[in-house]
């Protein structure tokens, strides 16, 4: 930025200095010529200074206009116009001074006339270079390799003409003719690059026309005034170099004029089609809006509204409606300048006439239904176009566009709306996918939390006693279940045990499990008999558990004094007991309904108090249905039988070893390390 400023300042300074030298040297040369004196300054100096002036200005505009990215097309035209305006105003001011001086001697002095001429010439060249730079930007708006090369050649040719002018080496006529022809042809070809015109809207086109016309006017004015003055001077002096003999000036003028005229005509003839282009542009923007709506807006609804609005605007429809089957299969109707009753009327009419696959959602083709509307009375609409909106090849809705004119839709319009409808489908699909991904991520996060909660709810240490040893194992699948076990010492001789399985998965299961833990820890220490425990637990849980969920549990109180186990089973898997006396493992048979299933007070009729005595070497295995229902690759269940056998085989070992062998057998049976349910077991071996 700073550099650019410095460069523009430097170049403008150069130009000014060059011009001042040019003026003085030219006047000196002219003066010497008139007085027939030998000139103090070399005759070539004015010419070289003009070149320096031109080159300095060329770079000035290059940095000022060509590099400025913020300029729009009209800005560029405005620059040309403004430069022309300033130049013309200065030139007119000079004329005014001349006029005020009247018929004094000064205005007729050739040196003074030369001075005025030099001012005008400088302004003129300035204007031409400004125009040249702007045209360059317009021509190179859509660059191609070929165009860039052509322009480079053109610029180099102009430069060589400029140098050729000042050194005045006379080349052969043919060479100069060829150079002129090539330059003008190239200039013409380049002038045909008018792509920028297409990007102007209607208003901008009018502005451009005005600016171009005024610029053209300035050009002609300058051409006129410079010619008049140079004629006047050359009549009196031989040494004077007419600007017309300066080929570069002529070339620049010709190019600026040609492009200006071309632009004017092209803009003029493009005026009637500008609305079409604007419409196309709007379509593109609408397109973008539909596709961007996923990121910016947070609902499908906005996609539908944009679709409706864009479609109506693009084809100048009088009304439209959009029927959509939402993600939860609900029907939605969006209307635009039409009442729901009218849409229903049209629907019914089409149905009555048995026009198949039109507005029903099984249709997957765009249909022009205008001819069928003709027979519908009391309807203001005469044209109807229906489009399917598809998501993943499934039609989720219909877009209907209506016009009051008969045959109001052409093929172009059909194509545009099809594209809109497709884009909307894609947007909705993306939107739904995104939603799904969010849901999954949230669900996963929830599971993670649930798993942590579940883990933290299980005891890290189990109650130990001289009368028995106890060990527990729990592994959970990816999907968190609600297996729970715990122990609590009630008194010196009484220890409470619980194993429970909460129905359901995820956070709710973990939540219910924590409730169960709370109930266990608060009730068990009061030392109720097992049936009472269940009845109270049920009462507490009934109002916490939602419809359809329940907790199966078995509650034990081991009395080490009486060597008895008191227990109550509420819907949980039966207890597996190995007795040393018989050397067999059997399931205890008893009755009991899961907690939360019976909501009335008579729950106590659905649970029992049970008890058994234990002897040294007896083993009690508690487990959840994850173990017995574990399946192998043939789809067989691990089952009660295998579990009992495994216990029988290993009953003489310690509780830890028994447990390990059961788990090992389970993994061997299921044939894989990844489990599909929660495995929980608690093994109690009596000493």
């Amino acid at each position, binding site marked *: 930025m700073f550099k650019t400023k410095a460069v523009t300042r430097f170049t403008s300074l150069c130009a000014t200095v060059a011009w001042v030298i040019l003026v003085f040297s030219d006047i000196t040369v002219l003066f010497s010529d008139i007085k027939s004196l030998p000139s103090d300054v070399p005759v070539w100096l004015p010419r070289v200074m003009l070149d320096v002036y031109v080159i300095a200005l060329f770079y000035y505009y290059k940095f000022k206009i060509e590099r400025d990215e913020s300029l729009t097309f009209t800005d560029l035209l405005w620059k040309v116009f403004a430069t022309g305006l300033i130049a013309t105003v200065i030139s007119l001011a000079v004329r005014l001074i001349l006029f005020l001086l009247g018929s004094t001697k000064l205005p007729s002095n050739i040196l003074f006339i030369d001075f005025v001429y030099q001012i005008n010439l400088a302004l003129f060249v300035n204007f031409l270079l400004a125009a040249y730079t702007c045209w360059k930007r317009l021509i190179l708006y859509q660059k191609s390799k070929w165009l860039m090369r052509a322009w480079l050649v053109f610029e180099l040719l102009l430069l060589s003409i400029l140098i050729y002018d000042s050194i005045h080496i006379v080349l052969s006529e043919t060479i100069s003719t060829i150079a002129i022809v090539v330059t003008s042809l190239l200039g013409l070809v380049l002038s045909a690059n008018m792509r920028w015109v297409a990007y102007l809207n209607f208003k901008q086109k009018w502005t451009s026309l005005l600016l171009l016309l005024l610029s053209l006017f300035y050009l002609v004015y300058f051409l006129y005034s410079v010619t008049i003055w140079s004629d006047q001077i050359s009549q009196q002096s031989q040494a004077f170099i007419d600007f017309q003999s300066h080929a570069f000036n002529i070339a620049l003028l010709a190019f600026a004029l040609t492009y200006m005229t071309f632009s004017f005509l092209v803009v003029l003839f493009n005026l009637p089609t500008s609305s079409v282009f604007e419409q196309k542009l709007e379509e593109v923007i609408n397109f973008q809006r539909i596709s961007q709506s996923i990121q910016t807006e947070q609902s499908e609804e906005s996609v539908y509204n944009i679709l409706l609005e864009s479609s109506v605007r693009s084809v100048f429809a009088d009304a439209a409606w959009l029927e959509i089957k939402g993600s939860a299969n609900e029907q939605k109707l969006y209307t635009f300048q039409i009442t729901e009753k009218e849409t229903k009327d049209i629907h019914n009419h089409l149905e009555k006439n048995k026009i198949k696959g039109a507005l029903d959602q099984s249709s997957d083709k765009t249909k022009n239904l205008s001819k069928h509307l003709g027979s519908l009375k009391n309807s203001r609409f005469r044209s109807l176009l229906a489009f399917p909106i598809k998501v993943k090849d499934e039609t989720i809705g219909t877009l209907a566009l209506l016009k009051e004119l008969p045959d109001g839709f052409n093929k172009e319009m059909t194509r545009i709306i099809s594209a809109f409808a497709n884009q909307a489908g894609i947007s909705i699909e993306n939107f739904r996918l995104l939603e799904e991904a969010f849901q999954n991520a949230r669900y996963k996060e929830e599971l993670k939390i649930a798993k942590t909660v579940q883990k933290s709810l299980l005891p890290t240490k189990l109650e130990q006693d001289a009368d028995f040893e106890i060990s527990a194992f729990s592994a959970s699948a990816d999907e968190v279940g609600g297996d729970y076990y715990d122990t609590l010492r009630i008194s010196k001789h009484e220890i409470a045990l619980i194993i429970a399985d909460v129905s*359901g998965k995820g956070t709710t299961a973990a939540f219910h499990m924590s409730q169960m833990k709370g109930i266990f820890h608060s009730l068990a220490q009061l030392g109720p008999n097992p049936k009472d425990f269940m009845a109270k637990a049920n009462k507490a849980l009934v109002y916490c558990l939602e419809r359809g969920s329940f907790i*199966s549990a078995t509650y034990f109180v081991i009395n080490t004094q009486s060597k008895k186990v008191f227990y109550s089973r*509420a819907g949980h898997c039966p207890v597996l007991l190995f007795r040393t006396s018989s050397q067999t493992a059997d399931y205890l048979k008893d009755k009991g309904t*899961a907690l939360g*299933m019976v909501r009335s007070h008579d729950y106590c009729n*659905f649970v029992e108090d049970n008890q058994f005595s234990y002897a040294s070497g007896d083993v009690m295995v508690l487990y959840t*249905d994850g173990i017995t229902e574990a399946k192998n690759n043939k789809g067989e269940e691990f089952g009660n039988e295998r579990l009992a056998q495994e216990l029988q085989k290993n009953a003489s070992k310690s509780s830890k070893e028994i447990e390990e062998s059961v788990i090992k057998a389970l993994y061997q049976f299921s044939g894989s390390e990844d489990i599909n349910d929660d495995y929980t077991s608690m093994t109690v071996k009596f000493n």
Partner: protein
Amino acid sequence: MVHIKRLQEDGADIIAIVGEIDASSSIELDLAIAKSVGEGFKKIIVDCQALEYISSAGLGVFMSYIEELKDKGISFVLFGMKERVLNTFSILGLADLLNIRETKQEAKKLADELSV
């Protein structure tokens, strides 16, 4: 996977369950029972002859209807359970809460008796 069929016989709505009912397919079972209740049937019979497996979520569905059925005076009978399935019902204590019969005839008879 589960497949649920409904057909009407002698004023009773018979819901036949084919396949396995786990956490995800239990929704279908719930829907089928809800429909049947919603349509105002006074006798609902569930055919479990082709029910291969039922998870606790599936049992939860039956359980959740017990009170509503009682309040509305709808007789609800299940029949034809395989031993394994019946075992699941009885372990949880649902067998005591629901009316379970072996054959369709028995189930129909019970439903008629209950609805009187």
